[in-house]
């Protein structure tokens, strides 16, 4: 279980997080929705310790993230970055198997490559992309390679930052199924960021809406449609009129 208590983060004069309180239960997928630029990615990075909050406490299974031994802590996580963040000097399979080629999870090269190819297949990529460089792939393919990398070492906790943005509807469906599968079959704790309401309905156990630097609403997916909060209502129905300013 991941808990965030009163997390604040400001960049210069830009107050991004203004007291986030959120609980991410184990073995479920919590989907965070919210307009672009509201700080969803920053929130994930705070949990991973890539961004240091100005204030507030974040714990994973009761241990403060600032006090956990870094290596052991990070090896429990997989992260899909919004922009993919593939290493462009390495071929695709070495990106996917990065963790399996060095450090505590190191395996023989052949075995690591086999795992990489299997993971690529799971995200709908054929083995012949394995030898290519990330720059030779389309944006959607890069995203899927990045997803394969996030799940390669079979982490307990996975963060997906906009996994389906930039994919066609069919591939989005494939990725949604995959995420659902990972969470239900492997009992992974997941936190997913997305704008795509179809995707939210397909993969979420719980939904949290971030707005104005705070969690505006949180609850199980089944209660989302009945939520009376006008912000949630406007967001999930994609209305131009409502309390959320469209001028940002």
């Amino acid at each position, binding site marked *: 279980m991941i808990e965030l208590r009163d997390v604040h983060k400001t960049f210069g004069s830009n107050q991004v997080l203004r007291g986030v309180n959120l609980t991410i239960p184990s073995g479920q997928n919590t989907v965070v929705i919210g307009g672009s630029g509201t700080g969803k990615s920053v929130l994930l990075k705070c949990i*991973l310790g*890539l961004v240091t909050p100005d204030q507030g406490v974040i714990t994973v299974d009761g241990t403060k993230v600032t006090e956990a031994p870094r290596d052991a802590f*990070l090896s429990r996580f*997989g*992260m899909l970055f919004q922009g993919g*963040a*593939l290493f462009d000097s390495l071929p695709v399979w070495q990106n996917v198997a990065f*963790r399996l080629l*060095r*450090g505590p999870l190191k395996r023989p090269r052949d075995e690591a490559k086999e795992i990489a190819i299997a993971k690529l297949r799971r995200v709908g990529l054929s083995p012949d992309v394995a030898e290519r460089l990330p720059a030779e792939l389309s944006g959607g393919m890069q995203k899927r390679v990045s997803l394969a990398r996030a799940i390669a070492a079979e982490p307990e906790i996975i963060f997906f930052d906009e996994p389906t943005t930039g994919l066609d509807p069919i591939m989005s469906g494939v990725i949604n199924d995959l995420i659902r599968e990972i969470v239900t079959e492997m009992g992974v704790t997941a936190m997913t960021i997305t704008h795509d309401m179809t995707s939210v309905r397909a993969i979420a156990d719980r939904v949290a809406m971030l707005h104005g630097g705070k969690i505006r609403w949180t609850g199980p997916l089944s209660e989302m449609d009945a939520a009376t909060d006008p912000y949630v209502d406007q967001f999930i129905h994609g209305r131009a009129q409502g309390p959320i300013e469209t001028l940002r």
Partner: protein
Amino acid sequence: MRFLAVIGALVLGRLAALGRLMRFAGETLSHLVRPPFYGREIGFALLNVGYFSLPVVGLTALFTGGALALQIYAGGARFSAEAVVPQIVAIGMVRELGPVLVGLMIAARVTSSIAAEIATMKVTEQIDALVTLSTNPMKYLTMPRVLAGTLVMPVLVGIGDVIGIFGGYLVATRSLGFNGATYLRNTVDFLEPLDIMSSLTKGAVFGFIATLMGCYYGMRSDRGAMGVGRATKGSVVAAAVVILAANFVLTEAFFSA
């Protein structure tokens, strides 16, 4: 008073930046003795900093040695001391021009590319991705490059020294009427071990500075393409200035006694 406040703020800002740089250098050095070591990365860095810099180093040294011979001949002629060309070319190349010019060429070629590469990795979240994949970016990116720079630059400077002297030799024997064998004997007899030691030491120090600056500016890059541009520019300027300042300090340390 306002004026003093501005100066004060400027000085404090510089000192803070120096402190950050020192901490960065310290952290880099600490990774030299803390496993794991990324052999492949070190190998690639050695190739990139060393081997692929050879053409640039060779051409720079060749032309400089040749020009030096012409100048010394012309200058020496004013008080009929043309004969000192081999000795002065040797001492000029080995003690000063070899290390300084190779250092500056490496700042242009290697510092800039390291800074741009790491800054781009920073901007595209590749550095964050490294961290989440349990890989320390200082160990994986910075240490191999700085180690390679420090190890390989003395070799490059040595090669530059030899090619520079050869450039002087070519000009002296082809157009200034020197005898080849005598030229070489004069060069060898005149150079002292300390000259060569100082040259190679300067090389190691400049290699350390050039690669460290590339990594430091890259890692601290701001976001966006502008951030990458600023990081690259800043790294080359800083590397060049610090190399020249370090050269003065080292010359003073080696030769003013």
